């Protein structure tokens, strides 16, 4: 086992609950490296909702809130306002963040509170058996859409930017270095930071949407479909259709942060 994992993970909850080849583990791996790099273990407050993705903070040997389905950002807001010196990091899934907790996500971004929200996006409700999530591709066959999903997927990064989030990035589990850099920047950034971390789900999305349960094939699919922002500038809109744009999409340092503003009012 890697020394970083040895240092920061709870031995009693290992091996992790993730299926073989799940991309969520890679995101946890990147996050632990950032924690080690910045040395912020004692000031961390991790929050997770319900779902595979929201199990991620439970393995870390620090203060963790494992809350109701979709309410992770609401709980994190309270935690941050109670103790603004904490680095509050929210691990949430696509269904947890955009479906059940969609309202909290919109208002968290609008308030620009200093949270780091890492949305692990596998495009399906994995833990509950493979139902349609807000990010499931159109025409995808799942347990609740046996004739194909009639709805278009949601662009979470565009929603975050339009609601007022001040740091927005999108990476995938196939880009561990980019993900690591984005998590580091997001934790350092003062304001609502949102990272969409696309990851593969071999058990549910893989078998029923993409027709393969092999992690390697799904990993390759994500890798081949991703285009960095620098490359995308030189490509035509037709060539970019169906591709995943990865990189830092938006950053704004000028907007006032909520907890600073509230504590400023209190000391006046």
């Amino acid at each position, binding site marked *: 086992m890697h020394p970083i994992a040895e240092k920061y993970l709870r031995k009693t909850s290992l091996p992790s609950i993730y299926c073989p*080849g799940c991309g969520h583990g890679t995101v946890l*791996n990147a996050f632990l490296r950032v924690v080690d790099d910045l040395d912020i273990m004692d000031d961390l407050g991790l929050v997770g909702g319900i779902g595979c993705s929201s199990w991620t903070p439970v393995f870390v040997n620090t203060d963790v809130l494992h809350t109701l389905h979709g309410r992770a950002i609401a709980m994190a807001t309270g935690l941050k306002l109670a103790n603004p010196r904490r680095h509050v990091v929210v691990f949430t899934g696509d269904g947890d963040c955009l479906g059940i907790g969609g309202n909290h996500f919109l208002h968290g971004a609008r308030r620009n509170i200093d949270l780091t929200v890492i949305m692990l996006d596998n495009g399906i409700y994995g833990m509950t058996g493979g139902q349609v999530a807000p990010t499931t591709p159109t025409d995808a066959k799942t347990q609740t859409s046996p004739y194909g999903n009639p709805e278009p997927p949601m662009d979470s990064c565009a929603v975050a930017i339009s609601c007022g989030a001040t740091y927005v990035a999108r990476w995938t589990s*196939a880009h561990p270095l980019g993900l690591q850099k984005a998590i580091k920047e997001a934790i350092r950034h003062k304001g609502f930071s949102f990272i969409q971390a696309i990851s593969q789900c071999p058990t549910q999305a893989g078998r029923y949407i993409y027709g393969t349960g092999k992690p390697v094939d799904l990993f390759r699919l994500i890798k081949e479909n991703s285009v960095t922002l620098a490359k995308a500038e030189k490509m035509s809109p037709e060539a970019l259709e169906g591709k995943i744009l990865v990189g830092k999409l938006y950053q704004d340092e000028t907007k006032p942060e909520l907890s600073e503003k509230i504590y400023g009012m209190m000391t006046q």
Partner: protein
Amino acid sequence: MNQKRKKKTIKQICIDENYCKGCYLCIEQCPAAVYEISSKRNAKGYLVPEVARFEDCTGCMLCELTCPDMAITVEKEENEK
């Protein structure tokens, strides 16, 4: 010359069999094809990958960064960071 320098920096690659789940993302991610699926099963019954071509390793650390269970450790020489 560059390759010689790189070879020196990697001491060893450890794969913790107790935590490996046999997803083989390390094999997919490695640009130098260092890993191969071995015939050895771990306690959970997965065929664990093995380091077949250690001398080809460039020290890019992608396997270590990608491993979802943090089972891989690429040990570098002490004087190198």
